[in-house]
């Protein structure tokens, strides 16, 4: 009953006219980012953080969360209409989604995707509501050693699942941790790796790093010309028939289960969820023979899984303070920027904010459903803007987004430098995801490590004598050693485009 009361309190916050407006704007901008080529959800959310700087923390996070799940749906539109995924998690949707477009059923595909996204997102948010209290209470009972072990486990999962080479994934993770070391040491207050520059005393701007690594490097790597030729479906062609709905229902149910379950696991990306949901349709779908030639299940399953994953991934963030994916890591960065620390203490210290944000996820899913289907024509018209024009405008927003965090041109230079670094890492096939995660977790991880060792007066066995901590570290070690043990890794993970 407590949970229900908390949720109702959160709903009153989320349904205030001001927060409704921010959720609406967030959904709109998120969908736009998902639609635009060359700017994925990670850079997109980071890019829009400056827009929320003057908002109160609840409204700011509501808007950023709406941007986050809005991107999930935006990617679907280009997958279905252009055979080009706007973001990696929608890549599998191109197969049947584009086939449906060629059959004149693009509107049905988009509506089913919106319905599936709504169901998947809503059910996953309900899961977050149910898990928040017990997991949050558990989190409050753990000390710095357990917290450190938990972060080690999260990072080891991401490293193990990212990219083809664990060595390269580890290099990426260590680089992120080292970047996070720049600035004033959080415990002793000593400046580190600042090269004597006052500008680096506060550390390297997180937003500048993310925009450079993910946004700018993508633009640098892609030199496209021309215009996309998208045709918007008429409004009448948007409505699915009864047969479409009947066929989609089991796929949506399967996609919800797969997406939510995998969203809970740090390191699992939305791409894996949507690929596995498609695999489930090939295995269990009643019309599996039609997959690949415009079967509605091929859109419903992956798109549902994708959104359920996005909302499910918020569970470890809200309850334990562990970001499960790069985009969630950016969201966590925004929390920290607003003076909020995600995790068990969030419910203890800022319960109204936490429940307001959770309730807004329900509201946001409704907004996405209402917003996106009628706006399909608008999104397709944006896709007709020539790519070089879009690039120039996106670059301008990157400069504005980076500058306004600290009102410093120095950050723009940082963004450019990290764009170059991101391009180099891409060319070297070094995954970027571990770097982002460790960049956010670095200071927290160092603090808990040092607090643990201070508590134990320098005795390293503190990590082995506490049962929860020991188990978490053993699991992390087993995951890190899995390649040496020649454990089998599903091909779907090896081929993950987001890794």
């Amino acid at each position, binding site marked *: 009953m407590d949970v229900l009361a908390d949720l109702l309190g959160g709903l009153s916050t989320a349904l205030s006219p001001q927060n409704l407006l921010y959720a609406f704007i967030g959904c709109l901008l998120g969908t736009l980012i998902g639609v635009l080529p060359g700017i994925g959800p990670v850079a997109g959310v980071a890019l829009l953080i400056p827009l929320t*700087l003057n908002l109160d923390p609840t409204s700011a996070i509501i808007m950023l969360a709406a941007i986050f799940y809005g991107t999930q749906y935006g990617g679907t539109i280009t997958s279905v209409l252009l055979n080009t995924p706007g973001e990696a998690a929608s890549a*599998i949707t191109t197969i049947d989604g584009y086939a449906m477009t060629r059959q004149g059923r693009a509107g049905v595909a988009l509506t089913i995707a919106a319905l599936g996204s709504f169901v998947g997102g809503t059910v996953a948010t309900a899961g977050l509501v149910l898990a928040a209290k017990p997991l949050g209470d558990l989190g409050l009972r753990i000390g710095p050693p357990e917290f450190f072990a938990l972060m080690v486990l999260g990072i080891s999962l991401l490293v193990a699942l990212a990219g083809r080479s664990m060595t*390269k994934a580890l290099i990426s993770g260590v680089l992120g941790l*080292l970047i996070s070391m720049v600035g004033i040491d959080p415990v002793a207050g000593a400046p580190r790796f600042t090269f004597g520059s006052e500008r680096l005393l506060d550390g390297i701007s997180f937003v500048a790093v993310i925009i450079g690594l993910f946004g700018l490097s993508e633009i640098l790597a892609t030199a496209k010309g021309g215009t996309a030729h998208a045709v918007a479906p008429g409004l009448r062609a948007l409505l699915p028939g009864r047969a479409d709905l009947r066929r989609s229902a089991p796929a949506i149910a399967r996609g919800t289960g797969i997406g939510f379950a995998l969203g809970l696991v740090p390191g699992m990306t939305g791409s894996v969820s949507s690929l596995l949901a498609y*695999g489930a349709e090939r295995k269990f779908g009643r019309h599996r023979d039609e997959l690949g030639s415009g079967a509605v299940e091929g859109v419903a399953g992956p798109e549902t899984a994708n959104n359920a994953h996005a909302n499910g991934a918020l569970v470890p963030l809200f309850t334990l303070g562990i970001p499960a994916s790069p985009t969630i890591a950016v969201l966590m960065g925004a929390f920290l920027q607003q003076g909020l620390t995600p995790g068990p203490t969030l419910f203890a210290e800022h319960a109204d904010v936490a429940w307001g944000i959770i309730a807004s996820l329900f509201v946001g899913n409704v907004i996405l459903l209402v917003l996106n289907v009628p706006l399909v024509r608008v999104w397709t018209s944006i896709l007709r803007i020539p790519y070089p024009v879009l690039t120039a405008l996106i670059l301008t927003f990157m400069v504005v987004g980076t500058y306004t965090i600290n009102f410093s*041109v120095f950050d723009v230079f940082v963004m450019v430098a990290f764009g170059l670094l991101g391009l180099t890492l891409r*060319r070297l096939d070094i995954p970027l995801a571990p770097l982002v995660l460790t960049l956010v977790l670095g200071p927290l991880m160092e603090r808990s490590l040092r607090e643990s060792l201070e508590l134990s007066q*320098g005795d390293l066995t503190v990590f082995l004598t506490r049962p929860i901590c020991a188990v978490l570290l053993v699991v992390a070690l087993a995951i890190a050693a899995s390649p040496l043990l*020649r454990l089998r890794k*599903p091909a779907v993970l090896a081929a993950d485009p987001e890794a």
Partner: protein
Amino acid sequence: MSHEPALAQHAPDPPEPLAPPSGARLRTGAQAVLVALSVYVAVESLGLRLWTSFGPGPGFFPFVLAIALGLLAIAWFVQSVRAGRDKTAGGEAAESEGTDVRHAAAVLGSLVVLAAVMDLLGYQISVFLFLMYHLKWRAGRSWVLSLALSLAGSAGIFYGFAHGLMVQLPPSGIPFLAGWGL
């Protein structure tokens, strides 16, 4: 891409793909930079004190990370050398295909110039010139479209942020231009 979630053998680390000469040079250079970075961080960390009477000092965590980075860079180098010897390493995709250097240089160069002059010329003039360069000279759009979009991206965003979001983008550092509201 296989759409079936088939299982594949996950070897200790896949053999390092054979890269074209320029890719191999980039890789070797990157490995050298990582080793140099690890040495620099380790030396700096030693100067920050590894241990204090209260426990680990400011240099402890970076020192551990520096050692880890150095070892990983060496491991990567060894894997590359082995892959070079083992000619069977062909199945994996090589490092990402080459970049359009002219495109990358134009984007990076224009951003560096923009950042360098933004405090002096102000947001509006510098971004207006930046957008004109990309829209008119690089993308070859019409004068009308280029001017309209450049004005929207410079003056439009400047006043939109100032009045809509209460966020002030930099005005010109030259009093004469600043007096004109630029």
